[in-house]
């Protein structure tokens, strides 16, 4: 694609204040996650059993958990897991889902039927048993975790993309491109994917939080992070149990989680508007 189009998009993205804020926040969180081992105030596993759960203080800015571990440190380390899981699994789901949906929707006919029925089959398989088996076969492995999550999350993505592509592929400009002899791949790449990207981006920004929470559930089966390391999903789940007694254990992880999702969302909206060729003249 031509450079100016992307540059335009970037300009538009930056001019959108909310998405600018979102981008800065996400960048900040990512940098923080990357340098966590250098700047974390405590060891994430270090317990101070005599201290126990304590409210935020000068020593522990966000308080400590029931074993007396520093919450801020645990959240910082947790962000490494959650961000990695959230982004990578979403990328996997996005890639498979978009490709699958586009091909099915564009090809139509038998190919479409078969591809979408495969999606139906995968929907029907008991996920818990699937995960337990994966664990038996591959052991505890974060890469595997992304695969397991990606393997489930792309299904809905594929359905959304397919319906989008199907409605687009009947429109005039696609038909015109076909008539002009543009190759199928060319049509998919140049016309279908860019035009279907709006709902895809929206759905992708919604997928990230889902996956971060799914990670906490997979930890239950022993597939997620290994104690004493934690993740945002796990911190939130543990915090929810004791929200009446130790509010900080729920509030701070939830806040970090929600802010990240808000930001992602602003970026998503900004990206969609920026990439949409039709919004340029409005």
């Amino acid at each position, binding site marked *: 694609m031509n450079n100016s189009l992307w540059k335009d998009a970037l300009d538009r993205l930056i001019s959108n204040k909310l998405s600018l804020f979102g981008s800065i926040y996400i960048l900040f969180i990512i940098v923080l996650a990357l340098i966590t081992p250098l700047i974390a105030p405590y060891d994430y596993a270090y317990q101070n059993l005599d201290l126990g759960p304590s409210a935020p203080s000068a020593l522990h800015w966000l308080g400590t958990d*029931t074993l007396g571990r520093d919450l801020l440190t645990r959240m910082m380390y947790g962000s490494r897991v959650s961000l990695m899981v959230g982004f990578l699994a979403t990328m996997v789901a996005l890639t498979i889902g978009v490709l699958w949906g586009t091909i099915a929707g564009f090809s139509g006919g038998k190919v479409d039927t078969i591809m979408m029925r495969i999606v139906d089959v995968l929907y029907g398989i008991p996920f818990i048993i699937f995960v337990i088996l994966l664990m038996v076969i591959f052991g505890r492995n974060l890469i595997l975790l992304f695969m397991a999550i990606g393997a489930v999350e792309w299904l809905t993505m594929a359905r959304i993309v397919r319906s989008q592509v199907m409605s687009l592929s009947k429109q005039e400009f696609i038909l015109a491109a076909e008539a002009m002899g543009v190759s199928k791949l060319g049509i998919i790449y140049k016309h279908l994917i860019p035009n279907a990207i709006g709902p895809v981006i929206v759905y992708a920004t919604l997928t990230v939080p889902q996956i971060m929470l799914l990670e906490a559930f997979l*930890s239950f089966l*022993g597939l997620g992070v*290994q104690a004493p390391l934690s993740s945002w999903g796990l911190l939130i789940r543990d915090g929810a149990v004791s929200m009446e*007694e*130790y509010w900080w254990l729920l509030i701070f992880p939830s806040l970090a989680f929600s802010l990240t999702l808000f930001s992602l969302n602003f970026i998503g909206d900004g990206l969609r508007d920026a990439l949409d060729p039709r919004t340029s003249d409005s």
Partner: protein
Amino acid sequence: MKYKFLFILFSVFLIGSCGENVPPVESSYETKILYLGNGTEPKDLDPHTVTGVPESKILMALIEGLVIRHPDGLEPLPGVAKNWDISSDGKEYVFYLRDAFWSNGDPVTANDFVYSWNRMLMPSLGSQYPDMLYDVVNAENFNKGLIDDFSLVGVKAIDAQTLKVNLRNPAPYFVELLAHYTTRPVHKATIEKHGEMDSMGNQWTRPGNFVGNGPFTLEDWKLNQVIRVKKSPTYWDADRVKLNEIHFLPIDNPTREDFMFRSGRIHVTSTVPTEKIEVYREQYPDQITITPYYGTYYYRININKSPLDNKLVRQALSLSMDREKITDKVAKGGQIPAFSFTPPDPNSYFPPTTLEYNPEAAKQLLEIAGYTPENLPTIELLYNTSEGHQKIAEAMQQMWKENLGINIVLTNTDWKVYLSRQNTGDYEIARAGWIGDYQDPKSFLDMMVTGRGNNQTGWSNEEYDNLLIKAANSTSQSERFMHMYEAEKILMDELPIIPIYTYTRIFMKHQSVKGWNPNLLDSHAYQYISIEE
């Protein structure tokens, strides 16, 4: 507009639904209905095939055995048997039955017990607790299919109201076993009307079909919702029963149970969320109850894995465990640090308590064993996923790291994977717990005999096995206890299992519930319970 409309609709919905709901606990002063939080949904209500605590609580209301447990002290009280004689060698028991009746009006006879024990011991029924009756002559042989003729087993009906039982060895705890649900009677005609004598999943346990002889009868069973039992008019001691109904609510989520208790939906909970224990002890000291429970929380060690095959390493692991810190700062439920496998026992068995917390000695043992922090391999600690187990494991990981320099990897899995890994010996250290079925050290120590299903450590010690055989054949309680004490000393020296703490029962109880007295087995006969202002 739509928004507003929905909002109004919702508000009306909310307002309309409030006020009508009088919390059941409040109305129970009138209705005399007891509402209980009862853990997981029962599998079935057949006393010979079930195994769980929730089932046992319900069976306590529905079926009565030869004896019942005293509501405070647990010593056996007459149940269907009004009294009994024990021969001087402790091997022959004669029970004299009272005029008791089934809920359909039939009399409860000695033959009912013979039939029931026969059924329970039939190998084809697949009962998981047949060992409760193994002290009876030939019961084990019959259950294992070595003999087919039940008349060779030592239980006979002399007449309709006299039951004679012969034991293969004196068992001072035998009468107490007869309060356990697996030894209780079932109604022959009902069983055979709905299926075979030995068919598991027989439909006789459904409401409408169920015939029992307990203080209550089964009224309703809504899966995952409620099991309702109603006062039985045919129960021999019906005058004593003060409750009209009991509703057993299956609640396997402690947070939800806590909400239900606080909103007046249940009188007694089955547990309290860990985070709340401390708070409730301060705020509601008269509602929270913490009592010792006849069970031990321990770590099981696979002694076939290096370096755990070395006794000194196991001793070092135990010595570097600060049990008091675990109970006070981590578990926080009033648990008692355990320095022996068998819990402290009111029957005056005092287990050897040689274990201690001594990190210095632990370090030395590890050195003697030839290990330094550098050449110690990483050890895996396995537990089933639960916040409580995880916290203890995390604390233990830090203690062992600090005191011995051992690196521990924590592995959590779901329940079935956890069980199957222990069964197949695919673990190094695993968290475990054991609750005694009856108050006798035997119910703990038997487990570690060579090849027993729950040994699972690969540990085998001839002297230990022999001591337990000697104990079984002892004629006096003091001699028995002496052998068991010696056996436990071996166990606590070898440490294929490392005890951590003695369990407690922690539950909330509404002040209107009277007669719900704490006891070691958390066993409560409902005929002694009432609801009063």
